């Protein structure tokens, strides 16, 4: 039974990897922000004495954790619904849970690779690098849950895009705006991406407090509830 489960998950995962290599729109999302971080760090941050070297790495990492997983997974699920490929998978005995694990693990693994790039650009080493990766993955997982829920709610890609973009923009860019505006910062504190931004901003990662993880946990729990509601109402039909 476990073998059957894992072969379905693996098949979905492999399909998604192959599809990404042929789908520039998805591929670019995973690559764009790490590339921008490298370019900005090398051309601007390293040439500005008053700017920390990891300034852009932190900024783009936060945007990455809030934006990419949410947009990608909602786009994948809604496209599969629109193209009826999901229906064929279900008719081939792939269980909804297996599909979601296959797609979810794909998003998380690719985002983990992107996070590694940010970690390296940000100059994190050793334990700090692992902590950085852990923080990023908590954000990626939270965004993935909300993105998957939106994908489940949407009938097609257009609806999914209309729903996900405003939410992803808030999650991704509010911490950046908060860097320059105190009012926005106060409002953004309830957001998981703001907490991620705080934590990765501290070079020694000393700001890993229980309160920060609690806020991320609450965000995650809310999105999990939304996901469960979406799954029960729409499943993958």
């Amino acid at each position, binding site marked *: 039974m476990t073998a*059957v489960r894992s*072969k*379905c998950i*693996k*098949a979905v995962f*492999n*399909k998604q990897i*192959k*599809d990404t290599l*042929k*789908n520039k729109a998805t591929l670019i999302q995973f690559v764009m922000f790490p590339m921008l971080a490298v370019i900005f760090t090398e051309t601007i941050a390293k040439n500005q004495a008053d700017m920390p070297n990891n300034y852009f790495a932190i900024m783009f990492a936060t945007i990455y954790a809030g934006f990419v997983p949410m947009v990608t997974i909602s786009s994948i699920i809604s496209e599969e619904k629109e*193209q*009826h*490929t999901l*229906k*064929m*998978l*279900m*008719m*081939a*005995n*792939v269980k909804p849970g297996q599909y979601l694990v296959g797609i979810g693990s794909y998003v998380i693994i690719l985002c983990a690779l992107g996070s590694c790039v940010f970690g390296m650009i940000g100059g994190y080493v050793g334990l700090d690098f692992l902590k950085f990766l852990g923080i990023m993955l908590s954000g990626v997982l939270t965004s993935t849950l909300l993105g998957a829920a939106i994908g489940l709610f949407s009938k097609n890609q257009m609806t999914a895009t209309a729903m996900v973009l405003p939410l992803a923009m808030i999650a991704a860019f509010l911490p950046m705006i908060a860097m320059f505006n105190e009012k926005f910062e106060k409002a953004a504190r309830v957001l998981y991406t703001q907490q991620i931004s705080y934590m990765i901003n501290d070079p020694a990662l000393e700001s890993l407090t229980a309160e920060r993880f609690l806020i991320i946990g609450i965000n995650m729990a809310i999105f999990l509830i939304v996901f469960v509601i979406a799954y029960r109402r729409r499943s993958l*039909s």
Partner: protein
Amino acid sequence: MNAVIEMNKVKKEFGNKTVLSDVSFSVGKGQIFGLLGPSGAGKTTIINILTGQIRPTDGTAKLLGFDSAKLADGIYNKIGMVLDESGVYERLSAADNMIMFADIYGISRSRITEISEKVGLSDAMKKPVETLSKGMKQRLVLARAILHSPELLFLDEPTSGLDPATALRIHELIREQQKRGCTIFLTTHNMEEASSMCDTIILLNKGRLVERGVPQELCRKYNKDNLIYIMTKDGKELNLDNNHRSAKKIAHLFSENQVESIHSSEPNLETVFITLTGRKLV
């Protein structure tokens, strides 16, 4: 008869709209069973109910002995489907599409080669699906459906919009599946396809079954005119009653080598359908 599919007094409503009323039929093992009806008659709804995608409002539907509302785990491994929407990954190659399903079913890659040769897609397997013609795509969908040698094959308008040569090839493939013992559930509004392919058919109109039987028997049943049409070599058209009184005249025409063409007035399934419903089968 060993029933593979059974529908008993099935009713389906979507809101206030009744799309199926009191539909009952059964399909025996190894049959090619045709479900004929115009667009909107309820053919796809029947497939959706049988495959457990939607539940009937009333009545029962059984698939391979299981209630379609509570299909057993793994039942889909025994079913193949060609639905009106292809459901193929357009950016992936035909081979990658097949590999994915082979992996899900736990089937060896050599089976993909075998099937792709059978459906005549060997040369196109490396091409992205989005570059394939409609006929090739349909053959790919059929190849995917038969990849795991299912016991039951649902074919929803499998040749709709295809050129005659591709349609013929698909018909051959369907017959091959029947030969190996597969039961085929075919929906179509193509009466020629139904006549030539199906062992049994049912005619569906506005969600109700209006007739059922063997295609040729149904055509004979509704042959009200019962005439023999003869075209003579000098261009005359003769309509003769199909009885012993005409036999002498027909024999005489043949002995005088006067017959250019001769055929009976049996209606085709389209005419039968029009007789029963006043509607066309398109």
